[in-house]
């Protein structure tokens, strides 16, 4: 029960934090091109989530 509550409450925050760290490191480690695009997408998703939550 507790695990289910924790999963329900924290899956999105944890997923977004992992995605953010991935985006921050991808552009730093990769050499331009597709790495940069992956970084832009990963870091833009949290912004899209904010837009979705405030618009709904």
């Amino acid at each position, binding site marked *: 029960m507790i695990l289910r509550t924790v999963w329900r*409450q924290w899956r999105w925050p944890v997923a977004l934090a992992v995605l953010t760290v991935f985006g921050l490191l991808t552009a730093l480690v990769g050499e331009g091109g597709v790495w940069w695009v992956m970084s832009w997408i990963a870091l833009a998703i949290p912004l899209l989530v904010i837009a979705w939550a405030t618009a709904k």
Partner: protein
Amino acid sequence: MTPRAVRNWSRIHRWSSLICTIFALLLCLTGLPLIFHEELGPNPKLDDVSADGPSASIEAMVRRAMAERPGHVVPYLFFDRDKPIVKVPTAPTMTTDPASFHYQVFDTRTGKALETTQPNEGFMYIMLRLHADLFAGVKGTLFLGGMGLVLVVAIISGVVLYGPFTRRLDFGTVRRGGSRQRTWLDLHNLLGIVTLAWFGVVAFTGVINTLAAPIELAWQANQLVEMASQAPPSAAAKEKRASIDIVLREVRTAVPGMNVTTVAFPGTPFSTDSHVAVFLTGNTPITSRILKPALADASTGQVVAVRDMPWYATTLFMSQPLHFGDYGGLPLKVIWALLDIATIIVLCSGLYLWWAKLRFWRSEDEVVQRQPATSDLIAIDK
């Protein structure tokens, strides 16, 4: 979490936020234009010249810069990472505060002096100083570092409180139609948790950046002294000076495949009285951020020591791009700016929620203060 624990964490979050919010707001607001410093800062116009041609003499540029400012010296050379330009500062002495430098900029391909505004003047410079040291030098920087640490405490306590405050809500819920405070609380929680990782990384790397001065001092006191002691300079080194073109040629031969980014002439805090220090960077995204110092005999240009920077300096170099957001092209800078705006909203909504709660507590106090009057009335009735 027990109600007592929630109360304690709320106290930590409230007080840590109250202490640092004004400074965090200042840092977020001044940081916003600084994200685009390359686009908004001094940007000299370059001629179209074949990149394969021979480079112009840097020594000639140094002489020209000194001729323009009689009585002044050239303490450093700053090469641009992306463009074929070199900034040549002049100052009354080798140890003058860089804030007072006068800069001349040259095209390294042609040797032509370029028209540019001074990097230590204007709107962007004011933003940079407010962001980096509040115009108070190293003390101001360390103070902002302390505020950054308090901000990290506010972020951690905010994450702890996110659990109990949103337990009954689906992720991303912003309740409308009720009180204004409730809507702003939901927005504060949503924006705070979504930008958590980014804000945490930028705040933490900002704190590391405030340690630049102590890190420089540690490097000067340990590594630079050790490097210089590897090959004591010749007797002539204090009088005779090799051309900087010879020094750069020797360094490029000794450390192939790297780019010169900064030159510190003898007598500056980053060299010795008889050595020129040349700082190089690599070509990959990570190595282009990490400086490698080479020390050359000032009289002959001969390289006497090359070594990697210690771990604490490398930590500082790696924390810089993660704080500045300047390593993934213009789209990354735009995303950085939008995330910055989201954190400004988190900070302002936090202040609003505290103010609304303060007003609520005051109104409760007034009710309590009115109670004796009511009891007086009861006494009169009796």
